[in-house]
């Protein structure tokens, strides 16, 4: 075990309002997985074998063995794995073989959960409609895409009607969080 201790980008931030919580959420490991050129036929079964399911469609995130998989760009997926495993990219690359390329991404992103504490989700969308340019109210559960908010890149994942995860680059995560909190305060307090 290394004596270097890991730090989270936002130092486990959390803030609560009546009916809304914004908190940094440890996601585990993120791995980019790209399909090698002309290897789709090998990739499909390998993906199924590794993750237990077919790969997601554009704008989609699905639960897979060990975590979630979302479509990130043509021939590329982002795998969200539960638990800490600094060599997760290598492990996945080994399982997938020559049909795919894996890249470790976990440290590149800060993860923020925005969720309603009850089934009432008005506050969630009232805040996010002043923050994210996409139509999240009507997006289906399992919607996931990359966009930008307040000049900062963000991956938006709608796990359920009451829970949305925002992944944003680590280096600017503090600016992103400040803007989100400011917006939430404007709407809710």
């Amino acid at each position, binding site marked *: 075990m290394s004596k270097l201790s890991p730090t989270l980008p936002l130092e486990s931030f959390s803030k609560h309002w009546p009916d809304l919580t914004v908190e940094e959420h440890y996601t585990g490991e993120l791995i*980019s997985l790209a399909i090698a050129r002309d290897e789709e036929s090998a990739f499909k079964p390998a993906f199924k074998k590794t993750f237990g399911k077919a790969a997601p469609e554009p704008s989609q995130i699905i639960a897979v063995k060990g975590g979630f998989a979302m479509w990130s760009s043509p021939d590329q997926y982002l795998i969200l794995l539960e638990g800490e495993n600094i060599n997760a990219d290598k492990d996945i690359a080994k399982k997938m073989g020559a049909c795919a390329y894996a890249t470790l991404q976990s440290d590149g992103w800060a993860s923020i959960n925005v969720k309603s504490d009850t089934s009432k989700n008005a506050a969630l969308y009232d805040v996010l409609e*002043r923050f994210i340019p996409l139509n999240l109210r009507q997006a289906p559960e399992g919607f996931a895409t990359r966009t930008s908010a307040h000049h900062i890149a963000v991956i938006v994942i709608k796990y359920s009607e009451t829970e949305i995860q925002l992944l944003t680059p680590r280096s600017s995560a503090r600016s992103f969080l400040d803007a989100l909190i400011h917006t939430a305060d404007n709407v809710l307090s």
Partner: protein
Amino acid sequence: MSLIDNTQVLSFTFNGKAYQGYEGDTLASALLRNKVRVVGRSFKYHRPRGIMGVGSEEPNALVEIHGAGTCEPNRRATTIKLFDGLNAKSQNHMGPLNFDVLAINDFMHPFLAAGFYYKTFMWPKAFWEKLYEPVIRRAAGLGTLSKAADPDSYDKGFLHCDTLIIGAGPAGLQTALNLGLAGHNIILADDDFRMGGRLLSEDYEINLAPALNWVNETIQTLESLPNVRLMSRTSIYGVYDHGIYGGLETTTDEIGSSKPRHILWRIYAKSSILAAGATERPIAFANNDRPGVMLASAVRSYKNRFDIDLENTALLTNNDDGLQTDAAHIFDTRNGSYVTDVGGRKGVRSLTLNTGEKIAANHLAVSGGWNPNVHLTCHKRARPKWDETLRCFVPDPKTLPSDMSVIGAANGQFSTHAAFKDANDVTEKLGAKPSSLPQTEDAPINVSAFWHVKGKKRAWVDFQNDVTAKDITLAHQEGFSSVEHVKRYTTLGMATDQGRTSNVVGLAVLADTTGQSIPETGTTIFRPPYSPVPIGAFAGTHRGQHFKPTRLTPSHKYAAENGATFIETGYWKRSQWLARSGEKGWRDSVDREVLMTRSSVGICDVTTLGKIDVQGRDAGKFLNKVYVNTFSTLKVGKCRYGLMLREDGIAMDDGTTARLSETHFVTTTTTAKAGPVFRHLEFVRQCLYPDMDVHLISTTDQWAQFSVAGPNARKLLEKIVDPEFDISNEAFPYMACGELTICGGARARLFRLSFSGELAYEISVPARYGDALIREMMQKGEAFDAVLYGTEALGVMRIEKGHAAGNELNGTTTAQALGLGGFVSKKKDCIGKVLSQREGLIAEDSLQMVGFIPVSSQDKLTNGAHFIPKGETPSPETDHGYMSSVAWSPMLETYIGLGFLKNGQNRLGEVIQASHLMGNSHVDVTVVSPHFFDPKGERLRV
């Protein structure tokens, strides 16, 4: 039927005097209620002005709202919702409102005709700027903008709907009801704080009951529908491409409240319905701008909605609609009866009629017909068409945006019945079932073409900008006959109301002058915004420290704890230097950091360099295309410097690339170019060579990366790298790279690269360990007196080594100019190779990078100085280049510089003058090789 709640008294001040109004009032209605007649002064002649309208069309009643140590100028009193404590002041006068010194302009009016300033103030030449213009500028403008920072906050938001309905009058409400009940996702926006449009101001009946009942019931129903969003006080200010609409919501008029004052909505709508109603227009006759001359519809609004009786009111109308106004005297132009002049300077006292008769009156309600509010149909360059029966411009279905429908008065359907019918028709068009048509009035307007009473006196067309009918005639006489020329020459329609009440009257006067019809005369282009929008709302929260994001490096916290001064590098904050106690200035710190690094070991956070994972069977081939040199031959476990060109042959970026496996390269970019280079590489991959097996992932934020440089770099790293990895010079020579573990198993990558010219490495770890690693290294480094150094010391060392950086890779320099011509592979094609061979880029006298040292060691060099041959007078012809980087070298104890000199590489040893003309400094410098320090590179290979 009034909408005033006189149980709720609101106190306010106007020009310091205290008044009271009621909940439901606007500032305008409250002032009228308190019988305040003069509320402002006109732009040019400084004529006393009163309230003329009731909404955003108001041209006269502009005031300032004061509060929180600042003020908001140019607010229409008609659109300010009265609140308790409102502090409003009139504007554009010198001295008190009632005794404006600049009212002298009104008496000078013969000399101040349209365009007078173009014809004079030219002599003597210097006088325009010294004398005339300052006087004009001082008098210009309307309200005063405080120089204090805006204390208010503004939010932005994004809404999505099937249909956006603009305007909540009868047409808008009925459509919203229809579509809302049919389950469509709709937004209904209205700029008033009460929905209902003209139904709030007229005493109509709907279904045999007061119209207000229908309004209230409809709003109640709409409020109960989850798929309907009602947005009052929300002005749709602009229509943009592909169904994007700009909306400005006003939450309060109070300054300095804790909540955002406005929310700027970007609304994405699959279709829109414009139900924005119509605006009544005045008639031009002598002194028609006197306080008390009002639009007839406004007079009715103040009576019905605000419960204010304007005493002794006369009516001038050219249509039936005006006849709804209660008036003691009625002058209907269609019966040959009209007003020719108004008596009373600060308020109407008398009216002169065309019969010559003079009658007493205190108010004159004027109706010159109605203009549909077609503005929003025109933002995408559609043009409305003239309707000869209605005598107004109506939307032209042929040019209307395909996703927009126009209904009700905005469509020239002026009666309430016609508005409802339009609403039901558009509902069917959108595939929904309309509800039954409410029963209501269906009276035609019967408007006549009566625009202007000709006479010797001035008759106002554009009230705010003081454009009179005569000005328009004069413009035509001087050849300004195109409507655009008239507008620009007279300033007609260019005031804050954008000609809401004046455009059509102005066109009619022009048409009359030219002898053309109105449609032949044309119309000006309506551009956004429909109503003015505060610049603060467009900026939202992006101001001050939040103007742009801030990116922090993994060592930020540690550096901040250790005296770092940070510098902006793009969005990054990097340590510039880290001061220690006793150091007098930044140079002390920087010199120390350089000396400590060169004598022992220094550490610098280089995470900001762009990092790109390049994977695939064709990764090497791909890199061959984008770099001038060859990467397919790079061995696994090795790094190589690479230079990238743009297709035009100019250097784009440089960096190092490491090969971690047969199919895996890691390439770096400069900090500034990380984004553009990634984009470029994706272009090459997707658009030029789509069949290569290569994938790109940005990993800049993933890896914390530190440069460890200096003679003791290896010794320090040996304490960090786990012992099973041999990093001796033999096992891990210059330009080696590899994956390993550190500090007892933490994953890391090590690259033996040097920017400083020292024995140096770059070590990277997943960013989660970045903070821990810098602390660990600094602690382990105590034994060697290790130093954390910033970008200044980094810069000094790279200049000492003659490495080009951002200042040299400035987008105009070639590989050859940078002294990197030798890197360009002759064996292969790469992006930029063909065009780099153009004559202008390889000419003998083209600029080449060299080094410079002052002849006299006391001399300071200036970055940005130009090189002039000794004995020549500085001129464009004798300019031989420029200095691009300078530094004080603590190693060489002199200033050194890099720069570009014509044919520089063949001029080593020449003494030339570095001229900084702005600083009046001319320094003799010797042209030298840019490799100032350890030119053979012995230190980095040990």
